[in-house]
C-alpha cells in the first residue's frame, strides 16, 4: 500500500474537511470510551491484570530466542511448519509460494494487520490469485479498495449508506430492489456472498493474536466467527503473523485475553477465541491438511534492546486510538500507512523509518490518555518523545524549529538575560497590541492566530513586579 505519512499535514486537512468522516469519528470518541470504562468498572482486578499482562510480555521479550526454540519444535511436532520472514517481501514470497504450490486460485482471509503491513492482497492479485476478505469490515474496505482506518474496526470511518452503495455496486448478481436499509440486512448479504467463497477457497490465511510456545498453538480472536471457517475449510491454513505475538503458555494467554476485549470493545470476551494447533491428524473429522506459520520481523528485532522495545508488548486492542483526541480529529487514513493513532505513531517510524513517518510522533499533545488506557502499560508518549529525540539527533527537525528553539534555549539557560528578554518581549507585544487585550493576528504566531485570538500580557512580568516588591 502507498505510504502517505510524509503528506500527513495535507491528509489532516482533507480529513478535517470531510463532514461524513467527522460524524463517524464523533461516534468513535463516545462509544468505545464509555464501553471500556464500564468494562473496567466491572472488573476490580483490571489494573492488576494489566500489570500481569505487561510482565508476561516483558518476560517473553527478554527470552524470545528460548521461547521460539520451544515454539518451533512444537509446531513441527504437530505437523505444521514455521517460516521466518525478515522483510515484508520475504513474507509475501513465502505465502505466494505456498499458495502456488497448491495451485490456489482463491484464498479466503481472516483479519490480519500483518497482511496489511506486507500488502499481501495486492501481491496475490498480481500473481493471479483472488484474495477474499471474510471479516466484514475488511470485506467492505476491500470492495472499496481502501486501507483500514482502525486496527480493530477497519471500516469505522464509513457510514451505513456508503456500505450499502459499495454492496450494490459489487453484488450485481442480486436483485436491484432488495432492501439494505438495516445493518442486519447488510451483514446477512455479506454472509450469503461469502458462504460460497469459504467452500471454494484453496487456502485460508489468518492472522494471529497470540502464538503459544508450550503448545505450538496460534490463537485468533473475532466477533464474527469468520476466522474459523477461513482456517478450517480450505486444505491449507497459513498464519500470517509477526514475532512479538509469542507468549509462553496458555495460562499466560488467558491472562492477556482478560484485558484484550475489555480494552478494545468493552466486551468481557470476544465472541470467538479460536485455537489452532498443527495440521489435521489421522482420524480428525476436519481441519487443514497443511498448517504454515509465517513470522514477520520487518524491523521488529531491531527494536529489541532499544528504547522502543516496550512497543513490542502491543496486543493491537485499539484502546489508544479509541481514546486519542488527535485520532478522533483526523481518523486513521491521515496517518498514511497501516497503523494509526498513538500505537502507529510509535510503531510506524520503526517499520518504515522516521524520515518517512516523522509527523506521526510529533502530532501529539502528550495528553497521556493513550498510556492511561493501554492494557499493556506501554509508555506511548515517552516513546513518541524518543522518536523526536532521534529526529533531533539526525537533524531531521525542521530548520526553522531548530533555529527558534536554540535562540530560546540560549536565553532559558541564562536567567538574567532571560528576564530582561521577557520584559522586552512584553513591551514589544504591548506596542503591537496598541491597548487591545488580544490580537486577531500576529505575524510571529500565525499558527495560533489562524484559529484563535492571542491574549495579551496583562501587566509587566511577574518577576519584574516581584522584584519591585509588590502587587501591580
Amino acid at each position: 500500500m502507498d505510504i502517505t505519512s510524509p503528506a500527513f499535514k495535507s491528509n489532516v486537512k482533507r480529513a478535517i474537511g470531510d463532514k461524513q468522516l467527522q460524524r463517524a469519528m464523533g461516534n468513535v470518541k463516545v462509544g468505545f470510551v464509555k464501553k471500556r470504562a464500564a468494562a473496567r468498572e466491572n472488573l476490580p482486578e483490571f489494573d492488576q491484570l494489566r500489570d500481569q499482562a505487561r510482565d508476561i510480555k516483558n518476560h517473553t521479550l527478554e527470552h524470545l530466542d528460548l521461547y521460539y526454540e520451544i515454539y518451533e519444535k512444537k509446531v513441527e511436532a504437530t505437523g505444521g511448519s514455521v517460516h521466518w520472514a525478515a522483510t515484508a517481501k520475504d513474507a509475501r514470497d513465502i505465502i505466494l509460494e505456498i499458495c502456488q504450490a497448491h495451485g490456489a486460485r482463491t484464498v479466503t482471509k481472516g483479519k490480519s494487520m500483518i497482511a496489511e503491513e506486507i500488502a499481501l492482497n495486492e501481491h496475490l492479485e498480481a500473481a493471479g490469485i483472488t484474495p477474499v476478505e471474510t471479516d466484514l469490515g475488511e470485506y467492505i474496505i476491500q470492495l472499496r479498495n481502501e486501507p483500514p482506518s482502525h486496527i480493530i474496526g477497519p471500516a469505522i470511518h464509513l457510514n451505513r449508506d456508503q456500505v450499502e452503495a459499495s454492496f450494490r455496486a459489487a453484488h450485481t448478481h442480486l436483485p436491484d430492489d432488495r432492501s439494505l436499509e438495516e445493518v442486519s440486512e447488510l451483514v446477512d448479504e455479506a454472509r450469503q456472498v461469502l458462504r460460497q467463497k469459504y467452500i471454494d477457497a484453496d487456502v485460508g490465511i489468518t492472522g494471529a493474536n497470540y502464538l503459544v510456545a508450550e503448545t505450538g498453538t496460534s490463537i485468533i480472536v473475532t466477533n464474527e466467527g469468520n476466522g474459523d471457517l477461513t482456517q478450517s475449510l480450505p486444505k491449507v491454513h497459513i498464519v500470517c503473523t509477526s514475532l512479538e505475538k509469542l507468549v509462553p503458555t496458555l495460562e499466560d494467554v488467558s491472562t492477556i485475553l482478560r484485558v484484550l476485549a475489555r480494552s478494545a470493545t468493552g466486551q468481557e470476551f470476544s465472541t470467538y477465541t479460536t485455537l489452532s494447533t498443527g495440521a489435521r491428524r489421522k482420524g480428525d473429522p476436519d481441519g487443514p491438511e497443511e498448517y504454515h506459520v509465517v513470522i514477520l520481523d520487518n524491523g521488529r528485532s531491531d527494536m529489541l534492546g532499544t528504547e522502543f522495545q516496550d512497543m513490542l508488548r502491543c496486543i493491537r486492542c485499539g484502546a489508544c486510538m479509541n481514546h486519542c483526541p488527535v485520532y478522533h480529529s483526523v481518523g486513521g487514513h491521515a496517518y498514511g500507512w497501516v497503523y494509526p493513532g498513538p500505537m502507529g505513531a510509535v510503531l510506524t517510524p520503526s517499520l518504515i523509518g522516521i524520515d518517512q513517518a516523522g509527523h506521526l510522533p510529533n502530532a501529539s499533545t502528550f495528553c497521556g490518555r493513550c498510556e492511561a488506557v493501554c492494557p499493556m502499560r506501554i509508555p506511548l508518549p515517552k516513546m513518541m518523545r524518543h522518536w523526536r529525540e532521534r529526529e533531533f539527533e539526525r537533524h531531521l527537525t525542521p530548520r526553522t524549529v531548530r533555529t527558534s528553539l536554540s535562540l530560546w534555549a540560549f536565553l532559558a539557560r541564562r536567567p538574567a538575560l532571560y528576564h530582561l528578554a521577557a520584559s522586552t518581549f512584553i513591551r514589544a507585544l504591548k506596542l503591537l497590541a496598541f491597548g487591545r487585550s488580544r490580537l486577531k493576528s500576529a505575524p510571529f504566531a500565525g499558527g495560533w492566530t489562524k484559529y484563535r485570538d492571542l491574549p495579551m500580557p496583562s501587566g509587566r512580568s511577574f518577576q519584574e513586579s516581584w522584584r519591585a516588591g509588590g502587587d501591580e
Partner: protein
Amino acid sequence: MPETVPKVGLFVTCLVDVFRPGVGWAAVKLLRDAGCEVDVPRGQTCCGQPAYNTGDRADTRAIAEKTIKAFEPFDYVVAPSGSCAGMLKKHYPELFEDGSALKASAEALSAKTHELISFLVDIMGVEGVDAAFDGTVTYHDSCSGLRELGIKEQPRKLLATVSGLTLEEMEESEVCCGFGGTFCVKYPDISNTMVSSKVGHAGETSAGLLLAGDLGCLMNMAGKLKREGSPVEVRHVAEVLAGALDDPAIGENG
C-alpha cells in the same frame, strides 16, 4: 501538615511570568494564607518543555540544571501549573544518568515539587478558602495535572468552599484542549478541531466562567472562545480561589 513554617520557592512558569502575572500573585496569596513563606528565585526561567518535547535533551538538561540549583534552598517548589510541575517532578530525573550526582539532585527536586492546588490540599491540608464568586463555573482538567499528578478532586474541593460559586461539570472535561505547547502551532488544524470541541462542551453548560490550572490551556481556550465571540470568560483557578478578580479575565478588555 508540616510543623515549621515551610519555605516555598514559587516556580512562576514562563507563561504566567509573561502573560498573566496575576496568577503568580494569586499563588503567593494562597500559599501565604496556608502558612507558607514564599520566595521567587531569580535563577528560574522555563521548565524546559519546549526543548524536551522537541527532542533536544542537551538544552533541556542545561535548563534543568539551572532550575535544580535555583530551588535548592527551599523546602518545597510549587508551580501554578500541572504541566510545569509534572516536568520538574516526573521528567527531570529521567534526564540524568543513573547514579550521577545530578540525578540525585533532580530526584531531590522532584520529591519536593508540587502543583499549587494539590500542594495546598494534599500537603498543607487546606480545607477551604476565604473567597466569593457569584456565579456558575466549569472546570477543565488539564492533562499533565490530571494524568501525571493525579489532580482531580483538589481544585473541586476548594472551589466548593468559594461562597456563591456553583460548579457545573462539562462533558469530556478530561479530554485534552489541543494546546500541547508547540503542538498548537505545528499542527494548527488538529489543535483547532480539539479546542473547538472543548469550548463547545464548555458552552453547553450554563457556566459563565471556565477554569483550569494551566495557563497554556487557558490561553488556548480563551483565544478560541473570544474568536468565536462567546461570552464565556476564562480564568486560572487560583485567581478565583484567591479572590483575585480585579484583573479582567484572560483576553478580556479592562
